[in-house]
Structures are given as C-alpha cells and as structure tokens.
C-alpha cells in the first residue's frame, strides 16, 4: 500500500513539476522572443494562465500523499540517515518539508494572482510567486528522488 502511494506521489509530482515549470517559463517570456521558433521559445509560448488551478490541485494532492507517507519516513528512514551520519541528505529533506509547507501557504496568493481575468496590478506578484513555487517544487522533487535512491547512492 505504502509503495503504491509512494509511486503515485512521485507520478503526481512529475505532473506538477511539468506544469509549474511550463508556467514559470511562460510567465517570464519576453515579447521579442514570441516570434522565434526555437524549442525553448515554443516551450515558453504557452497559455500560462491555464496552469493556475491544475498546479494548485496537483500541489495539494502531492502534499496530501506526502503527509500520509511522512510518518513512515520519520520512523524508518530518518533514523537510518542519522545512523549513517548522512547529514546533507537529512538536511535536504528538512528543507523539503519546510518548502512544502511554505509553498502550501503561498498557494492562495498564487491562485489569486492567476485567477481569470488576470489583474495587471498583480503581474509582479504573479511572476515571483510562480517562480518561488517552481523552485520549491524542483527542490522537493530532486530531494525526494535522491532520498528514494539513497541506499543505492550510499551502499
């Protein structure tokens, strides 16, 4: 059961990572780039506002699954990290926890910024909140993947 939840947690995190990365790059697009046809430009030339609600829903779902899985991590994995003196891994996961909580608290503001019709007075907040959430999601994803593979990395 826990393994299935962990896999689902990871899969939803992939979807969240893709959505928020797309949105963060799209919201940063410069007008002069919109006419060029490179891969990066096309990647960024998406309707960023379409990702607002999906990102909120995915973030909440990933966090909920993480909260269900967390007691097992706290009881089984974290003592192992401490026993093996893997302080960096332990610290990285501590940051993941805090970034997750702070990201959850930023979600209402983020959602308000992306609510249609987009309010021009929130342009700056929209950019910064999107990037803050994107960076948190990236950190959490990479840290989560490293922790899952920790036994292979430090045999």
């Amino acid at each position, binding site marked *: 059961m826990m393994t299935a939840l962990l896999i689902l947690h990871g899969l939803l995190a992939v979807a969240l990572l893709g959505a928020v990365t797309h949105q963060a790059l799209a919201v940063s697009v410069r007008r002069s780039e919109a006419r060029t046809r490179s891969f990066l430009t096309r990647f960024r030339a998406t309707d960023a506002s379409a990702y607002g609600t999906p990102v909120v829903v995915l973030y909440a779902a990933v966090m909920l699954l993480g909260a269900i899985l967390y007691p097992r991590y706290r009881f089984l994995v974290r003592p192992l990290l401490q026993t093996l003196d893997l302080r960096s891994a332990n610290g990285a996961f501590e940051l993941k926890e805090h970034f997750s909580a702070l990201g959850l608290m930023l*979600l209402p*503001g983020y959602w308000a910024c992306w609510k249609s019709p987009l309010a021009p007075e929130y342009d700056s907040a929209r950019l910064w909140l999107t990037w803050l959430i994107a960076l948190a999601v990236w950190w959490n994803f990479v840290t989560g993947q490293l922790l899952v593979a920790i036994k292979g990395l430090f045999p």
Partner: protein
Amino acid sequence: MKVRGRLMVFSAAASAAYTLAYYFDWSLFQYYVAEGRFHFVPLPASAGPPILWYG
C-alpha cells in the same frame, strides 16, 4: 478588500507566522509516530520521535 487581496495577505501572513513558529519552536501539537497519537504537550524522549506541526 477584494478576495484576491485577502488571499495575498493570507499567504504573506501565514508564511511569516510559519517561519516564526518554527524559529521559536511554537509547535501547535505533536504526533508521536510510535504510538500513533496526537499530544499538545511534548512527551519524554522514550515516547519516540514526534512530528511537530507549526501550522
């Protein structure tokens, strides 16, 4: 204040409150994994590792 403004204020205030609560260790309650119960008062170390809630 419109709904958007209120949500923005909530996000800013909640983030600041969380940071302060963590810094000063003002956890609202603890969840003890070994016994699977919530407590408002910290238990001795023999109770096992707690999960702290700063929300």
